[in-house]
C-alpha cells in the first residue's frame, strides 16, 4: 500500500496522534471500571473518574462480596461447560452434515441446505417463546439440553460455511480412500475432516464468541437454576433495592479478564476467523 515516505513526517505524526487518541478512547472505559472496582461502593456513582484515595479505597472488598453474591465461580464453570460442549457438538455434527449435503446430491439435501441458510436470517425473538416452551416440554431445560439447542441454532451458519469450503475440495482423494476400503465414517474422519480444519477453527471461534457472551437464550432456558456469567452479572442488577455498584464493577472486571487472556493467546486465529467468516458469510 501507499507507504508514508520519510519526508512526510508531519502526516505520520498526525496519524499517530489520531491512533493514540482512538486507542485511549478504546481502553479508557475498561480501565475506569477496573479503577472503580477498588473503590467503596458508595463512592463509585459519585465520583467515577477519580482515583481511589485513603478514604474511598476499599481493597478487595467488592471482589469478595461480588463473588459471594453472584456465585461467580459456579457461573464461570457453567459458561465454560456450555461453550466448550456446544462448540464441539456444532463443529463435529455440522461438518458431517455438510459433507453429506455436498456429496449426496438430491432434492432432499438441496431443500435441507436451503432451510439451514434460511434459519440464519431469522432473529431470535421470532422463536424465543415457542422454543423455550418446546425445550421445556422435552425436558431440555438443563445444561446438556442447552448444548443441543445451541447445536440447532448454530447449525445454519456452520453448515453454510462447511458446505462453502467442501465444494472446492476435489472428490479424487475421498474416492481413493473408499477404494482402499474405508467406509464413509473412516473416510470422513481420516481424510475429509483434516482438510476441513481451517474452516473448523473459524466455525469454532465464531460460535465460541457467540455462546460465551449469549444472555437471553440460557437465561430463558436454564436461568432459574443455572447461571452463566452474563446471567450472573445481570442478576446483580435485577431484584429489588439499590444496585451494589462495588460488586457490579468487580464482576465486570472478572468477566473481562478471561476474555482478554483468551484473546491475547488466540488473537491470530480470532482475526483470521473473523475475516474468513465475513468473506463467506
Amino acid at each position, binding site marked *: 500500500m501507499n507507504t508514508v515516505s520519510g519526508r512526510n513526517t508531519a502526516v505520520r505524526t498526525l496519524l499517530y496522534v489520531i491512533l493514540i487518541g482512538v486507542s485511549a478512547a478504546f481502553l479508557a472505559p*475498561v480501565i475506569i471500571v477496573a479503577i472503580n472496582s477498588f473503590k467503596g461502593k458508595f463512592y463509585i456513582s459519585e465520583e467515577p473518574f477519580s482515583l481511589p484515595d485513603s478514604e474511598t479505597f476499599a481493597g478487595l472488598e467488592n471482589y469478595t462480596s461480588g463473588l459471594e453474591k453472584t456465585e461467580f465461580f459456579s457461573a464461570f464453570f457453567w459458561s465454560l461447560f456450555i461453550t466448550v460442549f456446544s462448540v464441539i457438538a456444532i463443529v463435529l455434527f455440522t461438518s458431517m452434515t455438510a459433507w453429506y449435503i455436498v456429496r449426496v446430491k438430491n432434492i432432499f439435501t438441496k431443500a435441507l441446505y436451503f432451510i439451514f441458510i434460511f434459519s440464519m436470517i431469522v432473529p431470535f425473538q421470532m422463536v424465543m417463546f415457542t422454543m423455550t416452551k418446546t425445550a421445556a416440554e422435552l425436558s431440555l431445560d438443563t445444561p446438556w439440553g442447552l448444548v443441543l439447542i445451541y447445536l440447532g441454532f448454530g447449525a445454519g451458519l456452520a453448515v453454510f460455511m462447511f458446505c462453502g469450503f467442501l465444494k472446492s475440495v476435489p472428490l479424487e482423494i475421498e474416492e481413493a480412500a473408499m477404494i482402499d476400503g474405508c467406509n464413509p465414517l473412516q473416510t470422513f474422519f481420516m481424510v475429509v475432516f483434516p482438510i476441513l480444519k481451517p474452516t473448523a477453527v473459524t466455525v469454532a471461534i465464531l460460535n465460541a464468541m457467540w455462546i460465551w457472551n449469549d*444472555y*437471553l437464550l440460557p437465561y430463558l432456558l436454564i436461568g432459574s437454576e443455572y447461571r452463566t456469567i*452474563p446471567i450472573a452479572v445481570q442478576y446483580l442488577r435485577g431484584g429489588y433495592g439499590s444496585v451494589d455498584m462495588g460488586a457490579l464493577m468487580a464482576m465486570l472486571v472478572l468477566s473481562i479478564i478471561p476474555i482478554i487472556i483468551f484473546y491475547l493467546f488466540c488473537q491470530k486465529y480470532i482475526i483470521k476467523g473473523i475475516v474468513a467468516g465475513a468473506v463467506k458469510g
Partner: protein
Amino acid sequence: MALKKYFPIFVLPTLAAFTIAFAVPFVLGLYLSFTEFTTVADAQWVGILNYIRAFSNDDFLNALWFTVKFTVVSVITVNLIAFALASILTKGLKGTNIFRTVFFMPNLIGGIVLGYIWQLIINGVLQTMGVTITYDPKYGFWGLVILMNWQLIGYMMVIYIAGIQNIPTDLIDASKVDGANRMQTLRNVTIPLVMPSITICLFLTLTNSFKLFDQNLALTAGAPSKQTAMLALDIYNTFYSRIGWEGVGQAKAVIFFVIVAAISFVQLMLTRKREVEQ
C-alpha cells in the same frame, strides 16, 4: 455411493437439534401469531387481530422508530470510522498490530457487560449536568450509539483491512501515474475494489444494530418509561411482563422477522450489483 445409507449418523443429530431448536418453534410461532394463548395448548384462532393490536400499540411503534433511527446512525458512524482506521492501519506504519489489537478488543466483550461499562461512563459524564442516562431518551439513544461504535468498529475495521490489503498494489500505482490525487484514487480505485468488504460490513452492522438486545437491556432497560426500548426488548417485554399479550408479542416477533429478512435481502441485492469483478 455408500454414504447415502449413513444418513442417521451424518445428518440426523444436526437435523434433530435443528428441528427442536428452530424448525418446530418457527412454524409454531407463525401459527400462534394468529391466535390468543397463554400456553401453547390453549390457543384460540383470532385471525389478524394480534397484528392490528401490535400496530396500534404505541410502545411498538415507538420501539420501531427508535430502532430505525439507531440503526441508520450506527451503520453510518461505525462504517465511516472503521474504514478510516483501516486505511490508516494499511499505510505500513510501525505499531500497526498493537493498534489493531486494541481496537478489536471490545468486540469480544459480551453485550450485558458492555452495557454496564458504558452506563458507568455515561452517567459519570452526565453527572456534571446533574442528570443520569435515564433522564431523557436522547441520552439513552446516543449512549447506545457510542456503545455500538465502541463494540463494532474493531470488527469492521479488521474486515476492511483484509479488503484493502487484497487490492493489487499496481492498480494504486497506476492511478498515481495517471495523475489521480488521493481522493480520486480512493473514490475510483479503492472503494470499488473493496466493495465486497463494504457489502459484508454494512450487512453485519445493519443486522447487529437492528437486532440489538443485551446492550439495550443493560444500558437503559428501556427507561425512561420504555422510550429507549428497541424492537427486540419491546417484544421481550410484551411476552414476559404483560399477561394476556402473548399473541401480540408473537405477532410483533413475526413483523420483526419480516423486516429483518427484507433488509437482509434488499441490502445484499443492492450492494452485490455494485461489486467489481477483479
